[in-house]
């Protein structure tokens, strides 16, 4: 079959499945799937850049996604009154001191001759630096967290909350993720591939631990709610007579119409982002740079012999891919309207994206996008399907039996199981994915 025809058919099938959900369940459910599918597709695009183009194994996607979420808080929320004067400058001073201290330590380490003297001096400087840092940092944090802890207790953000300006947080989320990726890449790239995997796994957990515990930053597990959104609020639409009239013209009531309108607006925004990133990724893939990346992926030694700086190129693409994940994370937090660090789970945010890339077809941008939609759809729909299967299996059992109750209750855990099976089956029988690399 003609590949173009086949790919169009695959996208059409996924589209039909979502449309079927819309007709049988509700269009709101279908649009929720579409919106998260768009975000998932962007994440998959980022991972595909790293894995499909360059063969880098990044299992820290969750961390970059969470950093994007942090950006929406720091850009969108209003600054907490008095927080900066109370302790914000202290915290900032602590950070400036920490960076300066690290620079000094590195310089001293370079200047001194290797040996016990250097090791002792460097260790002593690091310990002293740490205590000075804590002495600057702790009072600032206490002061900030003491301000109205039930509502704020954090520094707050820049307060960019007008209309489309909110979208500014998305590229900033990308920048945050890129900065973190640069630090990780600088240390772990160039070592063995497994080490990058462990390092990214670790940094993701640490980013989540930071978000959970540093209340002064984004309120930790107290969550930030009511993030500004680029779309109108449902309630405003329902109070707008012109909108109600138009909704009536379509024959739907104002409440449903307003929820659909908001979701469609998000879908429009997300589609624009996805298209921009897709065009850029396609251009990159077909450019000399993209060819070089694939050459490095397929044979590092040969590429190095041809004068390509493998480590630098790896760093470049690692930062770019992570930035895309950060953008997607920021978009997701904007869509949710809240940042809840407790909900970031590696199985959901890292490994699911991996399943998307592998099932869709690593090395092919369209494959990644298809995988994003398809796997997200399955992830949402496997639970009701599992419940249905369980009810079918247990239909013959006596009501109230412990096994029946246990089986029905456990249906929720079918998700992980199914995703694992899907991943293994695709890897085994169709390792190039649904839309293989050309």
């Amino acid at each position, binding site marked *: 079959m003609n590949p173009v025809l086949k790919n169009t058919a695959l996208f059409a099938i996924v589209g039909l499945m979502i449309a079927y959900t819309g007709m049988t369940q509700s269009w709101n459910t279908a649009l929720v799937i579409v919106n998260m599918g768009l975000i998932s597709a962007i994440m998959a695009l980022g991972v595909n850049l790293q894995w499909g183009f360059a063969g880098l194994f990044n299992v820290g996607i969750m961390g970059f996604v969470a950093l994007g979420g942090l950006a929406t808080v720091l850009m969108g929320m209003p600054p907490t009154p008095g927080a900066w004067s109370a302790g914000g400058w202290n915290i900032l001073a602590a950070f400036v001191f920490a960076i300066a201290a690290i620079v000094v330590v590195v310089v001293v380490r370079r200047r001194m001759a290797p040996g016990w003297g250097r090791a002792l001096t460097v260790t002593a400087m690091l310990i002293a630096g740490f205590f000075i840092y804590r002495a600057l940092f702790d009072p600032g944090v206490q002061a900030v967290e003491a301000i109205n802890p039930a509502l704020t207790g954090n520094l707050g953000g820049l307060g960019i909350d007008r209309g489309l300006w909110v979208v500014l947080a998305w590229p900033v989320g990308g920048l945050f993720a890129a900065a973190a990726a640069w630090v990780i890449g600088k240390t772990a790239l160039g070592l063995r591939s*497994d080490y990058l995997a462990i390092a990214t796994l670790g940094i993701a957990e640490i980013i989540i631990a930071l978000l959970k515990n540093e209340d002064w930053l984004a309120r930790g597990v107290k969550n930030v709610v009511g993030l500004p959104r680029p779309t109108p609020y449902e309630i405003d639409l329902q109070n707008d007579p012109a909108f109600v009239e138009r909704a009536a013209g379509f024959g739907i009531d104002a409440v449903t119409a307003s929820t659909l309108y908001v979701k469609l607006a998000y879908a429009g925004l997300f589609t624009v982002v996805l298209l921009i990133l897709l065009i850029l990724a396609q251009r990159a893939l077909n450019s000399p740079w993209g060819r070089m990346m694939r050459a490095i992926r397929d044979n590092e030694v040969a590429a190095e012999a041809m004068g390509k700086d493998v480590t630098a190129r790896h760093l470049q693409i690692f930062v770019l891919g992570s930035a895309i994940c950060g953008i997607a994370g920021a978009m997701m937090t904007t869509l949710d309207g809240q940042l809840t660090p407790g909900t970031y789970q*590696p199985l959901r945010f890292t490994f699911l994206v991996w399943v998307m890339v592998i099932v869709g077809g690593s090395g092919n941008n369209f494959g990644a996008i298809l995988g994003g939609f398809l796997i997200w759809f399955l992830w949402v729909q496997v639970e009701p399907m599992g419940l249905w299967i369980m009810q079918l299996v247990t239909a013959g059992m006596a009501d109230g039996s412990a096994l029946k109750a246990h089986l029905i209750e*456990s249906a929720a*855990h*079918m998700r992980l199981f199914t995703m*694992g099976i899907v991943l293994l089956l695709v890897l085994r029988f169709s390792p190039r994915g649904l839309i293989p690399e050309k």
Partner: protein
Amino acid sequence: MDLLNALIALLNFVIIPGMAYGAQLALGALGVTLIYGILRFSNFAHGDTMAFGAMVTVLFTWLFQSWGISLGPLPTALLALPFGIIACMGLLLATDRMVYRFYRAQKAKPVILVIVSLGVTFIMNGIVRFIIGPDDQRFLDGERFIISARTFREMTGLREGLAFKTTQGITILTAVVVVIVLFWFLNRTRTGKSMRAYSDNEDLALLSGINPERVVMITWLIVAGLATIAGVLYGLDKSFKPFTYFHLLLPIFASAIVGGLGNPVGAIAGGFVIAFSEVTVTYAWKKVLTYLMPENLAPDGLVQLLSTDYKLAVSFLILLIVLLFKPTGLFKGKAV
């Protein structure tokens, strides 16, 4: 100045918990390092393998408890442990047969095997949650303490109490026994030697007539034993919750890498390095320092370097430092 009390406080809050945690990490890291040495990939499913073995042990413990069988002062889980190990061996052999063997025959790149092990992680995690659910399970019984803080205080008349939990004692003792048996096996028996030969140089080992499938099978059997023991000991000491085992993956890998991947001695050393750094950095030193320092110099704050929530960050930092300055680990590991 009160040296004795300071020493007891240090033992109670740092050294004994550190030893127990270190032993658990070392057993986990031994499993990871063996798989790395023989099968040549980082097994991300190791945490969930531990969870599976521990889960079967928990189920058998409950069964024995319902039958009224117990080991007296020792936890019944020890009696159920062999059943957990057997079930885990079955699971790992089945996984190898159905999943890994295909890629081994293909001579797939290690990173592909890592991704495959991610898929296995998903499935094992799903199975465990499906059978026992995602919640905390308690399965500890028997005597809680070898020495409780109160009896110790009454015995010695010191102000500080020293509590030594049965689980901590069992953990350390079991780890010592397991490690001795493992090293005896690797260094003294024919099969163990063939495993080391295979790990050192695959081609040479094949040439000298070592059957690779047999080596791989024995590796999985040993790993199943190690993972189940580590999982059960951790579950007894803390509590059994499927998801915590996934989070153990990072400290376990950190231990294995810090020691040098593929090197069993390194895995043990790495386990203790990681455990003690986590415990010392997140312990509030106020108590010990108050005993040690003159009264007017006693610290006001908790003197806790990092909050306990950053335990992971500590193991990660140690990992980074070792990777940057000694990329093959403290003991020479292997690089693929």
